């Protein structure tokens, strides 16, 4: 065997290891869009609260509270749908299957912490402890990203760590919860999405 054969062996090994254990067709663009949705959603919620709840972000009541929840749900839903659409498109381009062992494992490891966090936040909200939810959402979302990163592009974990740190700060200073949420879900998604887009998508 020649040197080139050995080199191609090594790259083949690397390729197979990644292909068989990681789902790498995540789209950076969907991160940017998710960040924009989050910013728009936050702006709507902020205007509502300022105008109708006397400017305090933490005493929600009546329809303002439910509208904010609906906006939050819409942001999550839109981000998930956008993510799925763009990822399917990218997977097709890469010749990667959208629904195989690696994507199933990725989704499972992402959704378990996220679902636990979602349920927990709902409980906290139902008890009227609004101040903590921003931080909790960030923490659980960060944990979900870290847990998913082993089965996808490893870079996701850095976004996860950032979200966790922001979440912890938010739980210590609930007064900044809203702004840290904006920073984590809005700005960080856009920054990270842009970085991923230029690192992986434009090649």
């Amino acid at each position, binding site marked *: 065997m020649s*040197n080139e054969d*050995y080199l191609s*062996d090594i790259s083949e090994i690397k390729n*197979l*290891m990644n292909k*068989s254990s990681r789902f790498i067709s995540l789209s950076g663009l969907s991160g940017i869009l998710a960040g924009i949705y989050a910013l728009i959603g936050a702006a709507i919620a902020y205007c509502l609260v300022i105008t109708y709840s006397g400017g305090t972000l933490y005493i929600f009541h009546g329809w303002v509270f439910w509208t904010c929840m609906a906006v939050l749900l819409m942001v999550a839903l839109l981000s998930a749908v956008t993510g799925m659409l763009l990822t399917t498109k990218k997977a097709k381009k890469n010749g990667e299957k959208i629904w195989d062992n690696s994507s199933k494992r990725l989704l499972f490891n992402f959704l378990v912490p996220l679902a636990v966090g979602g349920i927990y936040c709902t409980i906290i909200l139902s008890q009227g402890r609004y101040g903590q939810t921003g931080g909790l959402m960030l923490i659980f979302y960060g944990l979900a990203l870290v847990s998913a990163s082993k089965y996808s592009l490893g870079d996701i974990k850095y976004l996860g760590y950032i979200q966790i740190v922001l979440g912890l700060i938010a739980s210590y200073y609930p007064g900044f919860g809203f702004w840290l949420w904006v920073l984590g879900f809005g700005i960080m998604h856009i920054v990270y999405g842009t970085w991923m887009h230029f690192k992986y998508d434009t090649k």
Partner: protein
Amino acid sequence: MSIITNINKLFDHRIRLGIMSILMVNEYADFNMLKELLGATDGNLASHTKALEKAEYILVEKQFIGRKPNTRYSTTKLGKAEFKKHIEALEKLIKKT
């Protein structure tokens, strides 16, 4: 030439190298998953898994999922160690020239 001695003849084939690569990073893989990833035919893949099984580099478990027979593979400790040695030898060879 101690490097050459670490090049494992048993891995000197694309399919076998592929099987080991996949099993190194996955707890286990079944026959169909290997087949799809490697683009090999049934007979070809079976002969290579048999060779690796005979060397005790991989473990073969046959089971039933519902009524369908399913064969799944995992690496043994020996297989992992041998594969690592092989990769290291390959890397050294490339660096040398």
